[in-house]
């Protein structure tokens, strides 16, 4: 039997092995479930692992005739726990949804189910995807497989850590201001936020509807293209979804001849660590060796993007999260004399501190007397940020920057200062405001921790970005694997004993 290393195996290679009959879906799934058994108590990537269901489903796939197997048949997949899955508890890492058992499945997830992926479980996140470290999870903090004392990034930190730790061959995340790309960067894997509308948001529990987008977290750029290919497309259930002008192709580029790369000065400010800068600049040299042209450019309103984002995203969140009121699903406060008190206590008990902060900022910004100063002003800044990109893309083909100004930071180091945490996303937020696609690929190590390289393109330039990223990936040759070392600063991992597993057990007890 072929020896499979879950820290190295790509989905493209696994697909080939499955199709050629060199391995079975059951064997492949077992490799990942064994890895979960071996490292999950240290990493805490999942809120819920569906080990038995996954093994049973994989065995069933092996019984099917080859002709009826889906295109992604048997590939062990992690799903961020803010995408609803029929019959599997979906918590958004919030106590307010600790017992929520969805009655339908998110379109992006259903499309993967249609191709017979094996869902291993639901991954951890910052509560309702609000955060940059998974420390805002209502259940436990996920640990970075490269150094267990550090955060994996967020909010899709669970999916990113699962892929980096070999606890899934790939995963789905969602990105509102960097929540796919930043954890991908901090965990040394590939993460892509597609153009707004490319992937249906139906069944993605809404955080900020004009910014949210589902995308892949994978071990390689080719895997990213393969996964993206199967989740894009217009969906009648999401009226903001659109058909892509061309289908997502497998990237094949080896050279970058004639391609113009813009390096925006604003993304390389004082906050960028020396090690990150060095790795980034080295990658620029690789691009030039491949025939690409790197030139300085400017996105002058970048400094204001973070401000605009921290009005627009909380404003939309405060409206979206109004639905969690204890009436139709989730937690309901036990002690309440009337309806209003029930709402207030349910929400006070059910939401964690960061979600409360965002609801408060958003409600404040939308309230009478402050709307013009905050929300209207932020929407104007959003226009300026979007026009900055449009102007840059008249001259250049791809914008590049570090994905995160720093490598993975120690657990606990930013929790006391919300504003410092918000700064983690300074390089990733602008494209969400403009609705543009961007991908992060690993480009090196700094102090033994991965550095992410971000490529941003015009709307619907996914194939261009994937091609360029693929060529750069090959030239960089990033082949390091996480060590699961613990430099000691952080608290112990949450592991499997808490969170969704308990919720599921409780739920089943209730349902009989």
């Amino acid at each position: 039997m072929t020896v499979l290393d879950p820290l190295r195996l790509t989905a493209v290679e696994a697909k080939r092995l499955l199709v050629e009959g060199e391995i079975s879906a059951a064997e492949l799934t077992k490799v990942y479930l064994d890895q979960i058994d071996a490292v999950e108590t240290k990493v805490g990537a999942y809120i819920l692992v569906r080990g038995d269901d996954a093994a049973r489903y994989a065995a069933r796939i092996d019984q099917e005739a080859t002709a009826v197997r889906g295109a992604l048949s048997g590939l062990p997949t992690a799903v961020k726990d803010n995408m609803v899955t029929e019959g599997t508890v979906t918590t958004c890492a919030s106590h307010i949804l600790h017992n929520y058992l969805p009655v339908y499945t998110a379109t992006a997830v259903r499309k993967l189910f249609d191709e017979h992926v094996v869902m291993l479980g639901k991954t951890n996140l910052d509560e309702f995807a609000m955060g940059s470290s998974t420390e805002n999870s209502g259940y436990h903090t996920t640990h970075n497989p490269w150094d267990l004392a550090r955060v994996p990034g967020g909010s899709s930190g669970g999916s990113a850590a699962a892929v980096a730790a070999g606890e899934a061959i790939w995963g789905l995340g969602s990105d509102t201001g960097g929540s796919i790309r930043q954890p991908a960067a901090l965990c040394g894997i590939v993460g892509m936020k597609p153009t707004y509308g490319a992937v249906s948001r139906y069944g993605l529990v809404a955080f900020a509807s004009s910014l949210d987008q589902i995308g892949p977290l994978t071990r390689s750029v080719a895997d990213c293209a393969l996964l993206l290919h199967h989740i894009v497309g217009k969906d009648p259930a999401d009226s903001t979804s659109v058909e892509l002008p061309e289908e997502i192709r497998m990237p094949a580029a080896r050279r970058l001849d004639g391609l113009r790369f813009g390096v925006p000065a604003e993304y390389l400010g004082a906050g960028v660590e020396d090690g990150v800068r060095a790795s980034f600049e080295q990658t620029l040299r690789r691009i030039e060796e491949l025939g690409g042209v790197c030139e300085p450019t400017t996105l002058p309103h970048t400094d204001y993007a973070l401000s605009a984002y921290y009005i627009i995203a909380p404003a939309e969140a405060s409206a979206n999260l109004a639905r969690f009121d204890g009436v139709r699903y989730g937690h309901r406060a036990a002690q309440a004399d009337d309806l209003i008190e029930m709402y207030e206590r349910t929400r006070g008990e059910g939401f964690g501190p960061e979600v409360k902060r965002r609801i408060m900022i958003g409600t404040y910004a939308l309230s009478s007397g402050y709307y013009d100063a905050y929300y209207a002003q932020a929407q104007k800044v959003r226009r300026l940020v979007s026009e900055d990109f449009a102007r840059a893309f008249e001259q250049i083909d791809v914008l590049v920057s570090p994905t995160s100004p720093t490598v993975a930071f120690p657990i606990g180091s930013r929790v006391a200062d919300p504003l410092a945490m918000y700064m983690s996303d300074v390089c990733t937020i602008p494209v969400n405001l403009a609705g543009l696609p961007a991908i992060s690929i690993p480009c090196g190590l700094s102090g033994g921790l991965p550095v992410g390289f971000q490529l941003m393109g015009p709307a619907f330039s996914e194939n261009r970005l994937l091609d360029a990223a693929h060529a750069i990936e090959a030239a960089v040759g990033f082949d390091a694997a996480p060590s699961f070392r613990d430099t000691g600063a952080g608290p112990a991992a949450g592991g499997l004993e808490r969170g969704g597993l308990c919720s599921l057990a409780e739920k089943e007890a209730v349902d009989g």
Partner: protein
Amino acid sequence: MITEADVRYVARLARLHLEPDEVGRMTGELAKILGYIDKMGELDIAHVRPLAHGLDVVNVLREDVERPSLSQHDALKNAPAVSDASFRVPRMSQR
């Protein structure tokens, strides 16, 4: 500058119960965050048109035809309290 009274007022608008110690902490945190956001005020952008959305998509309509939707049974499945075929809630106001 945002005050504790503002925080209590906004919490009421948001139907969000805050404990007394949360009000104090929230006031400090919001003051700091809004202080940073106020940076936007530096820009002279009265003439700029607001942008609500990254893509130019407007008025997406579908055919007005009946389609199956969530059944009443499924819709009530997750409810904390059900009465007959309805969501059951506490009374609207004190007697």
